[in-house]
């Protein structure tokens, strides 16, 4: 009970101190919020990219386009050869006539009727047994002289994966860097606070205050400032995704998709808030430990 009222008192003191210099404190909270919203926003974009690419990754099929001069017999022979390759589950030969017919159904018939000859090659749709070996299979298929080009979603997904690894590394280094910036901002704010409270600290010590007692309100102040900065970061990055989603929705409609960017969930928001609060606490701690030593 006493502990509760006591923490309540400290928190109220910290809040009052915050309101004592509303503009400068608002400014540091905004700076903290912006600093934190960068990694948070990047994290959100990356997890959305993840979500989008996961839906491709399951599509391991690849389409092997043969050279246009390849005859049907040769195409058939190649289909059989590929079927015999390891790691291949199924091979479907799509004759150039079928490909053209399918294209005509897709609404491009205006352009196509103006053509005198069928420009499309025969193609094979190859379904691998194992989504992890898609790249190797693709490379082996390329070695057949009849093969002109290979379109593979999985290969794209793998390239995307590499991009995601890079994005994740970027997110974390940005988070680390900006956390350090946040520590510095809060540390500096607290340092100024301590100097402004110099008399109060000295007097409190004279009448029996322990270091813990002196430290406490500053720690609360740091945690409060960090937490409020975290809140700003949540609002900024959440609002950013919300705003982006309007363009995404428009874009998705033209592809007949209802894809939307996922926004901050409760867990991530809580993580941002807790991290920001802890960073604030840490910055305050370091600053208090360092600054109070000067007063002895």
């Amino acid at each position: 009970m006493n502990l509760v009222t006591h923490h309540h008192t400290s928190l109220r003191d910290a809040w009052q101190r915050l309101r004592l210099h509303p503009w400068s404190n608002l400014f540091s909270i905004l700076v903290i919020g912006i600093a934190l919203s960068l990694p948070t926003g990047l994290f959100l974009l990356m997890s959305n990219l993840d979500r989008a690419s996961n839906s491709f990754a399951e599509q391991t099929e690849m389409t092997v386009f043969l050279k246009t001069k390849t005859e049907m017999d040769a195409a058939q022979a190649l289909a059989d050869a590929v079927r015999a390759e390891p790691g291949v589950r199924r091979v479907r030969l799509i004759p150039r006539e079928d490909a053209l017919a399918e294209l005509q159904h897709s609404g491009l018939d205006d352009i196509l009727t103006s053509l005198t000859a069928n420009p499309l090659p025969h193609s094979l749709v190859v379904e691998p047994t194992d989504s992890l070996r898609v790249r190797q299979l693709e490379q082996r298929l390329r070695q057949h002289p009849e093969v002109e080009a290979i379109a593979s979603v999985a290969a794209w997904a793998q390239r995307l994966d590499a991009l995601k690894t890079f994005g994740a590394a970027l997110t974390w280094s940005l988070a680390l860097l900006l956390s350090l910036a946040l520590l510095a901002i809060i540390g500096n704010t607290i340092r100024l606070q301590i100097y402004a409270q110099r008399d109060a600290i000295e007097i409190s010590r004279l009448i029996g205050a322990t270091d813990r007692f002196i430290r406490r309100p500053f720690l609360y102040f740091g945690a409060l400032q960090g937490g409020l900065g975290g809140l700003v970061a949540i609002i900024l990055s959440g609002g950013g995704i919300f705003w982006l989603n309007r363009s995404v929705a428009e874009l998705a409609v033209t592809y007949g998709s209802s894809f939307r960017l996922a926004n901050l969930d409760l867990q991530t928001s809580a993580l941002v808030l807790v991290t920001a609060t802890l960073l604030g606490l840490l910055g305050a701690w370091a600053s208090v430990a360092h600054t109070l030593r000067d007063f002895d």
Partner: protein
Amino acid sequence: MIELLNVTKRYPGGHLALANCDLKIARKEMVFITGRSGAGKSTLLKLIGAIEKPTSGHIKIGEQDISRLRRDTIPFFRLNIGMIFQDHKLLYDRSVLDNVLLPLHIRDLHGVEATQRARAALNKVGLSNRERSRPITLSGGEQQRLCIARAIVGRPTLILADEPTANLDDDYATEIMEILKALNDSGDTIIIATHDQGIIARYGKRRLVLADGSLS
């Protein structure tokens, strides 16, 4: 019981403030320390309050040798002492009530209980109607009484008052002395540094004279 054994205090600048002082003060005693300005009165109180450390010698309070206190135990020792500073040492950016609440917060007392005790202390020194004021708006006598309220609110058993009536009109001085006298009557040990001979004569308590750092 307070006991000083051969205490010498030399300030870092080399100035000798107290030289080979011996002193015994019993519990519940009220003692005046007098002497010219610069004689070492404040220094003596600061040594007893563990605000300064003696250069040599021992200061014992009860069984404790406070010249040997570790830095982190000093705060706990100070909780037993109510100190009235010559220069007040009030927090001018906080209300009168908040100034009196500070020693209670330091003792981990909060909330209604703390507020009640702070108000009781303010009532004792006749400042009940000023609890929302800033100390700067108080008269010299009122500020001095606020110092007393802050010193007694934690219920210390030893009160060290450094020139509590300095710069005060006679009426105010008498008021302050009456409060201290009442605290002594209720069992507190009180040490008062003052150069006001009139007051010392009026109360007829034990009187120690400091001259150039030596007690007599």
